[in-house]
């Protein structure tokens, strides 16, 4: 197909080829987001002694599609005193980075849209932009609940970005590269070579920060169902609301994907006798996503100031200490442990 394209439309071929690749990433991503919501409802349902959705299609498998259809046909209500431009910009600003970050995610050797060398930095930049969507949504709605939610969210995401960034510093020290493919290949050689072992504290902090970063329970103060009702997206309805929802779940998959790539060896097989491949990556991501759901079913919600304390007074010192520790160890004969 590539040959046909390049032979018959040489001028536009490159662009069309890239667009096709983007579609090949975004469509499965959208489907996995939809079925992540289904998976969440089923998993939490069984944890709570319920069944979860089971009416639309077999085992409720068509439920996400029914939900999407319903949301599409709903009216998008624009609050009278809101800023129209910002009000509609916010959901776009939330979902765009959540999808854009996927450009540098490698699914297998060479199976990546843009194999840039500063891939890790690019992802950090993209996930940071997402917070603007939340802030603008809260601000433009001109509602006190939404405003409180966006303030909480802004403070939270900015603080946890630092802890998350520091834990990634540990990874790039080990891998000597910012390129995600290189980072994965640095972990080749079986289960024992994965970065999760030398960087275990950083992995834990990365994962907890990732939960906070995506505004998931127990860090869901920005939404705070029982406190500020729905937080920053309280005034959104219909598809505008669905876009926030999509972004949240796309971000969940993204951060799980990153954790799998950087700490759990990406597409590499844990044992020698089974070949490497993209399915390994999806299994690891699914496993990590399960934790998101498990947390949600188990933990009470933190208070806003407690989240700040945890981020600044616990996570950042630990990550700093571990980075220094790795740095020192790399100068000693034990450096092999840290590659």
């Amino acid at each position: 197909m590539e040959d046909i394209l390049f032979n018959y439309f040489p001028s536009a071929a490159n662009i069309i080829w890239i667009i096709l690749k983007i579609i090949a990433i975004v469509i499965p991503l959208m489907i996995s987001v939809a079925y992540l919501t289904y998976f969440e409802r089923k998993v939490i349902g069984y944890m709570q002694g319920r069944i979860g959705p089971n009416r639309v299609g077999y085992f409720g498998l068509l439920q996400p599609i029914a939900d999407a259809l319903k949301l599409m046909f709903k009216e998008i209500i624009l609050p009278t005193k809101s800023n129209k431009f910002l009000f509609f910009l916010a959901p776009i600003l939330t979902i765009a980075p959540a999808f854009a970050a996927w450009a540098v995610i490698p699914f297998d050797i060479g199976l990546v849209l843009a194999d840039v060398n500063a891939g890790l930095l690019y992802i950090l930049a993209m996930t940071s932009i997402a917070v603007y969507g939340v802030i603008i949504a809260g601000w433009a709605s001109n509602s006190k609940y939404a405003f409180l939610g966006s303030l909480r969210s802004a403070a939270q995401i900015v603080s946890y970005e630092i802890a998350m960034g520091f834990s990634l510093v540990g990874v790039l020290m080990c891998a000597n590269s910012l390129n995600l493919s290189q980072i994965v290949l640095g972990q080749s050689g079986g289960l024992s070579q994965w970065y999760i072992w030398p960087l275990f504290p950083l992995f834990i902090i990365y994962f907890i920060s990732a939960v906070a970063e995506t505004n998931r329970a127990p860090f869901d103060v920005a939404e705070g169902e029982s406190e500020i009702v729905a937080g920053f997206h309280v005034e959104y309805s219909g598809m505008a609301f669905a876009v926030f929802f999509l972004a949240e779940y796309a971000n969940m998959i993204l951060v799980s994907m990153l954790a799998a790539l950087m700490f759990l060896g990406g597409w590499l097989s844990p044992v020698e006798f089974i070949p490497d491949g993209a399915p390994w990556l999806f299994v690891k991501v699914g496993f990590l996503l399960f934790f998101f759901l498990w947390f949600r079913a188990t933990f009470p919600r933190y208070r806003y100031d407690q989240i700040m304390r945890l981020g600044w007074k616990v996570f950042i010192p630990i990550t700093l200490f571990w980075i220094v520790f790795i740095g020192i160890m790399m100068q000693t004969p034990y450096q092999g442990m840290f590659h």
Partner: protein
Amino acid sequence: MAEIKNYTMNFGPQHPAAHGVLRLVLEMDGEVIQRVDPHIGLLHRATEKLAENRTYLQSVPYMDRLDYVSMMMNEHAFVMTIEKMLDINVPIRAQYIRVMFDEITRVLNHLLWLGAHALDVGAMTVFLYAFREREDLFDCYEAVSGARMHAAYYRPGGVYRDLPETMPKFETTHKKNIKQVNKLNNNRQGSLLDFISDFTTRFPGYIDEYETLLTDNRIWKQRTVGIGVVSPERAIALGMTGPMLRGSGIEWDLRRKQPYEVYEQMKFDIPIGKEGDCYDRYLVRIEEMRESNKIIKQCIDWLRINPGPVISINNKIAPPSREEMKGDMEAMIHHFKLFTEGFHLPEGEAYAAVEHPKGEFGTYIISDGANKPYRLKIRAPGFPHLAALNEMTQGHMLSDLVAIIGTQDIVFGEIDR
């Protein structure tokens, strides 16, 4: 520089943590609460006024709807006041049944409180676990009175009827086959007492499940320890009762201090808190559920071996049996008079209170000798608790306010009446 001012925020009445129709006007400095102004009356149904136009018996079901999560306890206070004014004796078996159902009701109420409180603080699963057990208890209500919530089971002079010998059973549907139904009916083969007895053996394990999720959970502790502290002196001054008072370390329980029915014969402990914060009140209520379980067990043991009448034989107050009516003119007349005119209370006034799951729930009746009260006053425990909300939330954050509303165990049916 611009002047920084506090802002006002409306909390409720449509709010997931407002426990019904609570409306609060909050004065906030950022996330910190400066002043809380509760607005009530959104669920006002004029129960007290309605009772003035109905016979005493007709008012009993209204009591169910006051605090709609502890139905029989409300009835209990009302029928106790009537019995006090009539000066009649309740058969001992009826007293045991009342105590047993009071404690079942206490467990029902505390389960709902636990679930709702945990949900307010963000832990979803406890809510559904609590509702799983409430389902069994509602089945007990259903077996004994026919209604799952608004039972109208207590009557002046006793209870409506004796405990049934069979439990209602599940039937097969297109979703449930015979195997699933048999599994569900497994503990429903015997009488109601067998079913409750089975529940009391299972229940401590369930409480352990809730405690596993909450008691030692760091986040739960961070959210409740030191939140909404009430000193013992203030708790008394604010008119708090029930777990709110006991959480502050004051051992006050009407079941022990002013025993009614057969509570004197029961062996149970009264848990009290130490710090007077949300966490202590949580522990007190959890412990109360375990104590209630013990009381239910003692009642079951007694009820199994002591048959007898369950309602007064005084036919001026309690209706004669259906069988009697068929052959006896006197009984027929009594029945007719009771369900048309009702009974009259002697002139005077009386107050009787029970240890409601939420505190002291009492009714005060003034009678002018007619078949309906001249005035009925209901003392709802939630009312003074809600009044203390402003004091309890001083200097706390918005999230703590939600936790404090949860810990107060507020139900608007009784506050607005």
